[in-house]
């Protein structure tokens, strides 16, 4: 009898406990939903108390997953970390996810943690480098080891790769990503209005043949600019996202403007050499097409000597830089009797 009572009491107690925990679980979800609706983009801001409330205290399995973005405000001005950009994409994914689930989602919540105000949580997760994004699943026990980290490889199409990551880990479809349009509706309206006002003027000018298109000078400068732009390797800088210059490792006050090795170049370096490439040709064109019509022999002579000196220096400089950068030693093939 006593044993019977004992089992019954255990059953009742466990039942009570289960309902209690269920209640607290639903409370937690409700809390999370409130926090989510309070935030503008749907990203919940966590700190040490909320981390323990939502992650460390509740028993596993928790009824929700959290995907957490580790942020550090004082690193926002470091361009190479791209924290702001990733934070923005993260918010886009969050708001798209919420919009696609009609705010009825209780399985996955997007959160962020700031380093300076919640250092203990960073230690709890064992995060020592940023940008860092981590998914804490319902069954995750130890935050440091079990939670899944998103790899940083797909950072170029960040929102899309994060959506894939979430779908593969939680089996929750994110759905289409709603990016904010590049131009807002008001801006579009203004542009359309300006175009409308302009169009009669433009048509009139085209009919009269007085546009920039009819002016050869605009074509010359356009063509020379395209040439300068391409020859300076600017496309390389854009595609590879090269910086204009980098700091010297040994001496932080010095700037490295030129990179040795032909597989890479820095921005400023490219523009410098592109300028040298272009200036020689332009000086030659100036001498042969404009200078011949200049009156006064002295002016002609000085201008020409100046052009000559500048061109000579530019060519010499480029040859020197090229030899230095590529390490090639260009030599002629002379008759062996000459040596």
């Amino acid at each position, binding site marked *: 009898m006593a044993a019977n009572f004992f089992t019954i009491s255990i059953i009742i107690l466990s039942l009570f406990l289960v309902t209690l925990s269920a209640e607290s679980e639903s409370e937690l979800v409700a809390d999370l939903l409130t926090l989510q609706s309070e935030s503008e983009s749907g990203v919940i801001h966590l700190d040490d108390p909320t981390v323990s409330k939502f992650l460390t205290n509740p028993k596993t399995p928790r009824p929700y997953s959290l995907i957490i973005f580790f942020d550090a405000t004082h690193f926002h001005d470091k361009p190479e970390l791209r924290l702001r950009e990733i934070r923005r994409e993260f918010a886009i994914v969050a708001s798209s996810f919420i919009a696609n689930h009609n705010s009825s989602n209780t399985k996955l919540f997007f959160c962020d943690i700031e380093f300076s105000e919640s250092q203990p949580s960073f230690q709890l997760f064992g995060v020592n480098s940023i940008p860092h994004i981590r998914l804490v699943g319902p069954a995750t026990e130890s935050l440091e080891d079990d939670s899944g980290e998103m790899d940083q490889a797909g950072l170029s199409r960040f929102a899309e790769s994060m959506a894939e990551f979430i779908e593969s880990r939680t089996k929750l479809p994110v759905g289409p990503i709603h990016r904010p349009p590049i131009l807002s509706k008001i801006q579009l309206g203004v542009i359309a209005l300006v175009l409308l006002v302009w169009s009669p003027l433009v048509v009139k000018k085209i009919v009269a043949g007085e546009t920039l298109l009819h002016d050869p000078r605009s074509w010359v400068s356009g063509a020379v600019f395209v040439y300068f732009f391409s020859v300076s390797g600017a496309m390389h800088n854009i595609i590879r996202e090269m910086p204009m210059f980098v700091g010297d490792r040994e001496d932080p006050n010095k700037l490295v403007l030129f990179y040795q090795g032909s597989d890479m170049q820095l921005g400023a370096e490219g523009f410098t050499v592109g300028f040298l490439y272009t200036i020689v040709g332009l000086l030659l064109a100036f001498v042969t097409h404009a200078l011949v019509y200049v009156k006064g*022999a002295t002016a002609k002579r000085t201008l020409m000597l100046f052009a000559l000196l500048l*061109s000579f220096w530019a060519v010499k400089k480029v040859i020197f830089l090229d030899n230095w950068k590529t390490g090639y030693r260009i030599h002629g093939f002379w008759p062996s009797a000459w040596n």
Partner: protein
Amino acid sequence: MAAPETSTAAVPSLYTNNALRNAFGGVLSFFILLLIGVMAFSIRLFSVIKYESVIHEFDPYFNYRVTQFLAKNGIYEFWNWFDDRTWYPLGRVIGGTVYPGLTLTAGTIWWLLNSLNIPLSVETVCVFTAPIFSALASWATFLLTKEVKGTGAGLTAAALLAMVPSYISRSVAGSYDNEAVAIFALIFTFYLYIKTLNTGSLFYATLNSIAYFYMVCSWGGYTFIINLIPMHVLLCIVTGRFSSRLYIAYAPLVVLGTLLAALVPVVGFNAVMTSEHFASFLVFIILHVVAFVYYIKGILSPKMFKVAVTLVVSVGLAVCCAVIAVLIALVASSPTKGWSGRSLSLLDPTYASKYIPIIASVSEHQPPTWPSYFMDINVLAFLVPAGIVACFSPLSDSSSFVVLYIATSVYFSGVMVRLMLVFAPAACITSGIALSQSFDVFTRSIKFQLPGISSNTEVDAAETSSATAEAQNDAVKTEKSEETSKNRPSKKSKKKEKEEKPSTKAKAEKRLIALPLDSSVISLLLLILLGAFYVVHCVWAAAEAYSAPSIVLTSHSHDGLHVFDDFREAYAWLRHNTDVDDKVASWWDYGYQTTAMANRTVIVDNNTWNNTHIATVGTAMSSPEKAAWEIFHSLDVKYVLVVFGGLVGYPSDDINKFLWMVRIGGGVFPHIKEPDYLRDGQYRIDSQATPTMLNCLMYKLSYYRFVETDGKGFDRVRQTEIGKKYFKLTHFEEVFTTHHWMVRIYKLKPPKNRIRGKTKKSKSKTSSASSRAKRSGMGKKNPWH
């Protein structure tokens, strides 16, 4: 061109003198052109002199094999050729998937020589096709530049093109690839377009379509032509340069050219279905509308015309909007917006690096840095801006084409280093114009300021000289100038505006149309120095940088020259020691060479059309021996070939390419994971390497018995001792290793006998692992093994 007319009219006594000079100039430029052709041919022979007369690299071997087939079996067999020696067991339809221009050209040359009883081998013809076409390309450059700016500029441009390093890199003797003939076709098509534009002759328009057809046959880069020419037509229309000549130059090209292009099997209906060609059709429509408007304008009174314009514009706008909406809907419905990945990455340079890693990973598709320009066009980079400015004084239809050509091609070359090849001819043409004009100005300045000539004659001479200088330039054009001036109203009016200013000035101060004597002499010397530097650089580039055939390698060391001929040694071994129908597996880089040199069937080759098949080979190479054996056995492979550079320090061997095999294999078969082969994100083969790495087939085949060479197993490429030195092969046996260990060939051991009652077949790969383990455990009891 207005100048020579006036000069001949004003000074009739000079006419006979001029005619003699023109005749002499004609003969001289003929000989100069001949010498330029000889130079273009001979500067490309360094590879034959330094090495030997062989086909280079990888793709040329395929082209060579196709040419052999063509020479042996004739054109119809070639057209219907299904190749079962490659992509086993799939095979490949060759006739419908290659650009046949190069093959047909070389095949025709060979046939012609043979029917003239000149018994050259197909290989010899293939080796020398590229140099021959370089000579043709420099002549085509002469023709094109002559149409734009006269004979002097043409000769200079031809000389520059004959030795421009960018073009040399793709056309040395032995480099038997599509680009070799395609650059000639490109320049020649442009020349015929300009010629038609200048003359308005339907004869040249037809020739232009045929040249375009040849270009389509030769190279996928023909899309550059079919977009550049419409752009130029549009430019002419927008800037008010429409003429009947423009119509004749463009309309037949679109109609005939598209029809002819659709005849090439590899292009086919792409010629009308892909977005790359839509621009030409759009411009075709616009051209007709504009031509119609000009026609109506001619037959109506101005008032009636205004009424008609308002009527047509309102109706036309509605129709245009509808058509454009349909077009946009059509284009938008395809996932890539109807553009191929490569074209898209030209328009949006960051596209490839974001979305198509396989295009972004190829080294020729990288964006170049500034030293690439100095390496590939050298001092031309300095001269091009001057050439651009020269094209604008005065601006004509043809010179605007050159400007457009250089602007677009320089932009494209900035996106992809491979397109430097298209940019190089444009750079040569503009630099040729710049050089020739500057020489013109400087020599004129010197000639008429030399001491001993009185100031009176000086004035006279200065005037006539500027005229004769131009007359020389336009020597061939003078006869035509009358008829051409008739149907060139827009150009002429423009010119008149331009010419008025200088002529009034010239009257005021005739003497000053020259530069100071001393500085002219210095500039002339400096320009010659610049040209000399160009020649030295080009010869150096041809001799040192671009002549290595990469099938035979050499290295200089303190004890002399070393030649590494291991590749041919290995292929010859395969050819002589294996059965004709044996299948050889290797990484895809060596597929073309194996089929061409060893004449054995390969699983994958450099035409990477089937990713799954390549991934299968990649998976086999990254699997442990047993699993690899199963994969290879299921593909009927008898021999496995690996390239190993560890002994001699050849860096582009299979171990260095191995991560690509893992990546590509893992892309299709997820059980291959790249992190398994990396220790803390680092790729290493020393004692720190992961067990997966040390047990994969590629490691074992590369380093089998390697420790026997020096006792330590020191890899000279990776600069480290290898991780696992002593091991045995269970499923493969070494059959051949070349002299320098660069190529190693292994044979698959025959399958073991099965024991009765244990014939349970494993279906899936995962379950097979365990059952195989059991079977091999049992296998030890088999008395026959």
